[in-house]
């Protein structure tokens, strides 16, 4: 501004001086002095205009150049983003300075915005990855997880939870729990937890959920843990509900309790006989030699029973735990059967029974543990003799099954037969057919052990066919070659 004012003043004084000088010159030129006043003014005006033009044209050109240079400079600076030096007239420098600082400000602002956009993009990508990770983690969990917001709407859930509470995972997000979760107790727990605003402890409760329809309907047992999520304002931002399925655990615990209870019963029974008879002997309650002998005999028999029971229990648990020593070799089933039939012969003769042996005239060799297989054969024969009335008949037969490449052994009797409802439970540990408990003594473990030896140790099969009052046929098959079957199994 100051420069402009100075320039105007200079221009004004130059013009005035020029006019005064022109006036002085004109007064000396004769023909001109004789001119009229009007003409005089016209001449002065024309000469002044011409003089001014001579002065202003170069100034205009210079200004135009400066402006072009300034424009080029601004364009260069904007495009290059480089701070090149400015070589323009000094009087234009204030404008360039303010333009430059404006450009710089815009540039800084642009840079900040770009950085912010990049940050947001990165954050968005990270969030996306995190969400995928959370989804993967949730879906790989064996526990059900449901996350709800303060309005009791589902924010997140996994397949396990959807399956447990029978809702469709797709479409459940952002839906209120009243619409998604059918189980009223769980809905109530989530609402209560949200309203409690308790962030410190994790509330765990036992809850049973009925699943399935009709015959498939059953109850599942869950441990439900609920915890509040805190938001940035330290308020309840939602509730995380975790469903831990304990059905299998409880079943196993129940099975173990049942086993211990049954085992305890089976062990205590012979033990109580032994204890009672020993006490009677010690107290001299057996008056004569005959009674004493009978007491000794009973004690011996009950001790044997206890020993057998413990052996069987240990054998079964060793096979179940996979720590049994197996002496695998080529076993001739014919000789095992003959030996077992000879062993059982005296018991059969006592009941006036016949034991028939029918062996196919082919080689019946299997790969297995001879002692264990002998135990199976003897057990089946012993059961047949025990549960068949006097003068009955027991037939043991063996043949090879070329189709399955195995040896099939069956023990048929003319005994009591087994009630249909007892058939599926026959191989359970400690299971004994009610009506037979009085017919003969047993540990309730023999058939369970046979099943373990045949199926777990030899990869064979065991089964029974029976009709009440028409006798029973127990059979088992053992593969001739162990190696191939083991791989297939």
């Amino acid at each position: 501004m100051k420069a402009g004012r100075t320039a105007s003043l200079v221009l004004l004084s130059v013009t005035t001086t020029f006019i005064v000088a022109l006036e002085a010159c004109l007064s000396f030129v004769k023909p001109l002095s004789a001119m009229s006043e009007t003409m005089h003014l016209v001449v002065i005006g024309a000469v002044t205009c011409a003089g001014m033009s001579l002065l202003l044209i170069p100034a205009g050109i210079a200004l135009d150049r400066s402006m072009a240079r300034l424009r080029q400079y601004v364009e260069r600076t904007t495009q290059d983003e480089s701070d090149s030096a400015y070589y323009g007239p000094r009087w234009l420098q204030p404008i360039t300075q303010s333009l430059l600082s404006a450009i710089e400000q815009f540039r800084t602002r642009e840079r900040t915005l770009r950085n912010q956009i990049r940050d947001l993009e990165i954050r968005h990508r990270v969030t996306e990855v995190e969400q995928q990770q959370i989804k993967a983690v949730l879906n790989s969990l064996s526990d059900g997880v449901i996350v709800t917001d303060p309005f009791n709407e589902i924010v997140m859930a996994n397949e396990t939870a959807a399956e447990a509470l029978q809702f469709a995972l797709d479409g459940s997000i952002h839906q209120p729990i009243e619409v998604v979760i059918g189980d009223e107790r769980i809905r109530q727990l989530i609402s209560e937890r949200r309203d409690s605003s308790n962030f410190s402890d994790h509330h765990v409760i036992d809850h049973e959920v009925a699943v399935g329809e009709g015959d498939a309907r059953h109850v599942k047992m869950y441990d439900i843990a609920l915890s509040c999520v805190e938001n940035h304002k330290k308020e309840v931002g939602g509730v995380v509900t975790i469903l831990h399925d304990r059905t299998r655990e409880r079943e196993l615990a129940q099975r173990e309790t049942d086993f211990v209870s049954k085992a305890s019963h089976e062990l205590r029974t012979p033990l109580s006989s032994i204890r009672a008879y020993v006490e009677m002997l010690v107290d001299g309650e057996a008056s004569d030699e005959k009674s004493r002998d009978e007491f000794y005999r009973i004690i011996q028999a009950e001790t044997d029973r206890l020993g057998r029971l413990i052996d069987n229990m240990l054998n079964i648990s060793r096979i179940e735990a996979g720590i049994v020593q197996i002496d695998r070799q080529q076993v001739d089933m014919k000789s095992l059967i003959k030996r077992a039939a000879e062993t059982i012969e005296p018991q059969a003769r006592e009941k006036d029974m016949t034991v028939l042996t029918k062996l196919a005239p082919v080689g019946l060799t299997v790969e297995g543990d001879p002692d264990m297989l002998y135990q199976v054969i003897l057990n089946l024969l012993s059961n047949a003799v025990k549960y068949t009335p006097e003068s009955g008949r027991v037939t043991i037969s063996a043949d090879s099954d070329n189709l399955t490449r195995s040896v099939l052994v069956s023990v048929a009797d003319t005994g009591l037969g087994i009630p249909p409802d007892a058939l599926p439970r026959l191989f359970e540990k400690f299971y004994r057919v009610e009506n037979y408990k009085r017919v003969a003594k047993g540990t309730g473990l023999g058939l369970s052990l046979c099943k373990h030896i045949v199926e777990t140790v030899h990869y064979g099969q065991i089964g029974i066919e029976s009709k009440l009052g028409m006798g029973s046929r127990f059979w088992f098959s053992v593969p001739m070659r162990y190696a191939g079957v083991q791989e297939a199994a």
Partner: protein
Amino acid sequence: MTAKILLVDDEAHILQVLSLKLRNAGFDIVTAVDGEEAYELACQSVPDLIITDFQMPYMTGLELCCALKQNEATAEVPIIMLTARGYALDADDLASCNIKQVLSKPFSPKQIVALVSQQLQGMTHDGGTKGHSEAA
């Protein structure tokens, strides 16, 4: 008059040894091998006391006790329960079925004689068992 005791167990050896012990102690003994037989015997001639095993075929000891409790004639007969189970019986069951004592197997025959005498004495002296069972 000798007190009559009904012994119930599906284990023949137990029946045999307890019968001998209690007979030697001067009691009159009747035996049964399961709950059904025991119930019939008890109804025919009401015993002064019953000793029964818990786990038996057809009818468990507890079912026998409940059946006896339902029958007016046998409702007040005190019962001693023998059990080979690994855990305790439910206290409500015991009280509602007139079971005075539960004895875990293996037991001592001497201990049984002592318990039987104690129960029968209690009955003759103050009739306390009757009152107790009704309260239960």
